[in-house]
């Protein structure tokens, strides 16, 4: 398995990141090195093994449906670059 330069550009665009041509070429090469490493798994017959999504076993810890105090609006907005009243202010988004 390998990726092309075009795929790297698409991944960058989806992540809203922009890179120079040199960086893109470098990422393509590095991605492919990582994928080549993963390809080693192909040496084994894993057709009977389910994909591992989590390394921990056992059922998840569940919480009871009880509420706890939240942050205050001032605390919640403390790191916001900009606020308007108690709302986060962000660059204008058009449409939904």
């Amino acid at each position: 398995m390998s990726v092309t330069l075009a795929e790297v550009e698409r991944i960058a665009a989806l992540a809203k990141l922009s890179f120079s041509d040199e960086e893109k070429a470098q990422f393509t090469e590095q991605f492919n090195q990582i994928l080549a490493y993963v390809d080693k798994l192909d040496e084994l017959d894993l057709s009977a093994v389910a994909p591992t999504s989590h390394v921990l076993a056992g059922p998840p810890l569940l919480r009871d449906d009880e509420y706890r105090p939240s942050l205050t609006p001032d605390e919640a907005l403390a790191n916001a670059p900009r606020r308007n009243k108690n709302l986060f202010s962000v660059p204008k988004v058009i449409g939904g």
Partner: protein
Amino acid sequence: MSNHIEYEPVIGLEVHIQLSTVSKIFCGCRARFGSEANAQVCPVCLGLPGALPVLNRKAVDYAARLALATGCEINPRSVFARKNYFYPDLPKGYQISQFEQPFCENGMITVETASGGKRPVRIRRIHLEEDAGKSMHQEAYVGDDESLVDLNRCGVPLLELVTEPDLTAPEEAAAFLAYLRQLVRYLEICDGNMEEGSLRCDANISVRVRGTFGLGTKTELKNMNSFRHVERALAFEYERQCALLTAGQAVQQETLLWDANRNIATPMRSKEFAHDYRYFPEPDLLPVEIETNWIEAQRRDLPELPQAKKVRYQEAFFLPAYDAAVLTEDADVAHYYEQVADRVDDKKLASNWVMGEVLRACKERGEGVTDLKMTPALLADLLGMLTRSEINSGMAKQIFEQVLQTGKSPHDLVAEGGLSQIDDHDSLQSVIQTVLQAQQKDVSAYLQGNEKVLGFLMGLVMKATSGRANPRTVTSLLREELAQLKNRL
């Protein structure tokens, strides 16, 4: 509706059901609607670095209830996944949802259509996910260069239900949603309030030549906030697609936003890479594992579902389909009715009063049936007195109003004598006829000349009206009635 009779619509729905849990799905913030902006948020639902989600047990219970009520198969293991996209109301940059292994699959809801037909609608899947926050663009306090974001709703638990494209008319889509709303209210997992966004519906629609089985190019409809708008938007889009095909043009696959003010759907500005969500398993949450025993316990705890209840009312109480539908619309009303029906013989009379006076009282007072001072037991007492002709229906209505006001029992109200005298001929005549029917021996004695019996019959009529009949009217009506019987001899 249409002059495009050669085409039929093919409709599928995607419904988001907001669960009425106390707290959010992955953190302990309150999940209620309408609080002060950004007052129910914490590091988890704000997506602050290092915060970890912990699943709310009740969200899983609620998902199981809907799964079982719609005949879905619950997957023994379902996996949370990250759905990645950028939008200001999604602070983490991904929504925790389920993708490849949803909570449950392959269910069925059968919708009763207005024409009395039945439409089976397959449920493809139901999965658990978290809601996003709320963005504001147009409100007066929003500046020209900004959008504003309230994250209170971020992390409120949702179930997303996806149907197969089995609906064949806009009215069927509306009927499906009405039934789903009734169902989630019966299951007590969602308040069903579409205006407040507790139920949100997107639809997809394509058209095909009637009688064929292929699928045309579909469009998606969004931004409909009531059943009526879903129906109207689908009718609009059906017409639009038919007109395109009739004119030899092709339907474009796109998303349209319904504009309720103008009654039209317009294409949404297409988002770049809109459908590349790069789902992957959520590493911060272990898969949900469900045991068969637990599912069976949940199944036993399910309440009787609306459609089954409706059938039972027709079979056990001999009610017309209309009555059964009205009484079972709301679970509380159905419960009220059953408590009345348990105490009276005439189930149809009980139905008439619950559908009529009780629902009217609720509407006028803006109260639920469980809030009324007229309890099912008191209504049953009242109907008992009515059936035994101790009171007539006019009086019964007066007493009903007084019970609503005071909560006193109908017997006490009659004993207190606070009711007006009955003077109307029709109701007295019917009481007299009932008395005469029951006392045929005395009647024949009178007809053979025993005048003294008149006083006795008179007493019975007064008793039947709890002493409230006008005696003079009773005497004259009684004489008239007996005279008629004599003439017939």
